[in-house]
């Protein structure tokens, strides 16, 4: 039942879109994957923008969250207060994982779509007949050319493995990380390396067509991050302003200090200090090497004072 629904609403449409794109894009399935990736990113751009806003808002609430966590020892009450704070700030704590979760059904479907459209065996080509829509333009297009830039898109490719790792790392590096928590910073720093390594490892056994999708997706993600947050290491300023969250309800909560030399995003009238901990992961790394420890201590002091 789940398989049938998955086929009908996700896999089969994807198979047909890929066939159409291949035909339109000069018979190149590689170009079709690139085109498909861009279409997906465009279609999910509102979600991506929402994610960026929510992530930022969530992180700007971190001082409040930390205060509430220290203030309430009862987990139930703490959770209630946290949710109340989120609600008052207009933040949906789940809002920033939507696009991330959306990637997984797309990835799974694309994995199967590539295997269906570029069959590894005659039996697989036979199975494709049941997935194609009854449109002559589509029916006449199969089987598709499986090679792109010298790669067999059905099989793993070492170049793509490297590109998956590099582009994922680049996306992680350009992803904004707002946190005042040392432990989380360490985790994030570790994930900046772990995630690309893990994905590259998986790419060793995935069709290179899927790796191509992930690579292009990451490159586009890097572009979004740079457009949204800039990239101070290269002197690139943000090109768009994100929506500002509502003022956190606990006005007495102290904002964490800015993390290093991050430029305040345009439109933020509170200036640099209000950009609590806003930094790309690259900046965070630098902070970790320079002022990270002392800044963390400073961030903790007010809380300790309040608790005492």
């Amino acid at each position: 039942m789940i398989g049938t629904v998955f086929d009908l609403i996700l896999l089969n449409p994807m198979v047909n879109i890929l066939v159409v794109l291949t035909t339109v894009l000069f018979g190149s399935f590689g170009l079709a994957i690139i085109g498909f990736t861009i279409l997906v990113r465009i279609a999910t751009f509102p979600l991506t923008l929402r994610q960026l806003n929510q992530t930022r808002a969530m992180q700007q609430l971190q001082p409040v969250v930390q205060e509430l966590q220290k203030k309430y020892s009862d987990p139930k009450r703490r959770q209630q207060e946290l949710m109340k704070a989120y609600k008052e700030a207009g933040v949906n704590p789940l809002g920033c994982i939507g696009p991330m979760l959306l990637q997984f059904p797309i990835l799974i479907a694309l994995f199967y779509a590539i295997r269906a459209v570029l069959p590894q065996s005659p039996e697989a080509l036979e199975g494709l007949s049941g997935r194609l829509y009854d449109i002559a333009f589509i029916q006449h297009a199969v089987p598709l050319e499986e090679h792109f830039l010298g790669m067999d898109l059905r099989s793993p490719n070492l170049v793509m493995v490297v590109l998956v790792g590099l582009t994922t790392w680049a996306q992680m590096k350009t992803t904004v990380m707002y946190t005042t928590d040392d432990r989380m910073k360490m985790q994030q720093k570790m994930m900046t390396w772990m995630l690309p390594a893990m994905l590259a490892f998986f790419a060793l056994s995935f069709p290179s067509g899927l790796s191509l999708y992930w690579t292009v997706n990451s490159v586009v993600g890097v572009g979004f991050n740079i457009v949204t947050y800039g990239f101070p290491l290269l002197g690139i300023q943000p090109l768009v302003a994100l929506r500002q969250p509502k003022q956190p309800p606990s006005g007495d909560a102290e904002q964490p200090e800015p993390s290093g030399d991050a430029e305040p995003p345009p439109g933020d009238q509170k200036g640099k200090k209000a950009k609590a901990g806003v930094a790309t992961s690259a900046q965070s790394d630098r902070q970790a090497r320079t002022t990270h420890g002392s800044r963390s201590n400073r961030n903790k002091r007010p809380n300790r004072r309040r608790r005492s």
Partner: protein
Amino acid sequence: MPRHPKKALAFAITALAALLVACGDIANPEGWATPHFTNDTLYYFPDDDTLVAVTFDDDQPQTVTWGFPDTAIDAEANLDIDAVYGDVVVDDDVIYFAGWEGHVYAVDRDSGRLLWTTRDRLDVEGSIVAGLLHHNNTLYFGTTEGFFYALEDETGAPAPGWRADGIEFPKGLWATPLLLDETIYLATMTGEVHAISAEDGSPVWDAPFESGTGAIPELSLLNDELLFVPTLGKTVYLLDAATGQEEFPSFDTEDWVWTSPAFDGNYAYFGDFEGVIHALDITTGHDAWTAQAEDKVKAAPAIVDDVVVFADRGPVVHFFDRETGDRIGVPNHAIDSGTVRADLVARDGYAYILTTSGDLWRADPETATVQPVPMPGAAE
């Protein structure tokens, strides 16, 4: 809660990878080579990588005389046959076949031992789906990358006068090459039919036939004049073999046609992937009758006396009067394992059906029944 969004991301990616890897093997080649009967022996593939010879007496299998390859023999231990799709060629003393992995094998017919293989000698471009054409001491075959090769049957070396690295055609030679009057016919998955000289590969027609309706996975000769050209674009063409021109306007089907027909001199019987069974009258280019199977039809039917026997992918076996199309009995669901992709074979009043599970079944048109053929164990 996205308190640790990257942890959640890592977990999700791990789960995704586990799921994909677990579900990864969905397209392993299995093969669909047709069983081959001689007077007293059946040669067939009970699984994707082993050819066996079974003696037959009074329609009953007697002994498995040999299996190939035999992993206990050094020369055959590492052959790694993936799957075999094309029919075996049975010569007086030798059996030839080609594997999906791109190698051609010559096996002694009596002993079942390897005579030669192209493995380690000829690195063909692509895989081999098509069967071999054996003519004039030469083996011809095409590959999925569109390369056409000719080998000496004695040694497996490139045939004199032919390029060792193959002649390149538009991509995808999936159909077994055909021969008629020193002309070889080739079909491509780009929808073309080529006629070339068996001597040197030079073109025979003024121009190749172009279907314009998609890939041509099979090619058959109906008599000494007509080529049966099915496509994945739901169209069948009947071509004049001499000129490559359409003998009749193209014939539309409900779905892909990926099969050879059974031909009785007047009608070409075949099924499509919508399960529609056709009896195509080659004198008019139209259906004499049609019927409906329960699943897609990949295997070519078998004509046994006045009955044409189909097995669909269900697998369900269907019996029809070949003149009228009247169904004989009811659709038979006796086959309880695998599915049917290999062509059916008519022999001594029965139609033999090989399933993808490697089981052999025998359909009796007189009673519209289907019985398993119990295979003996290997000879000591």
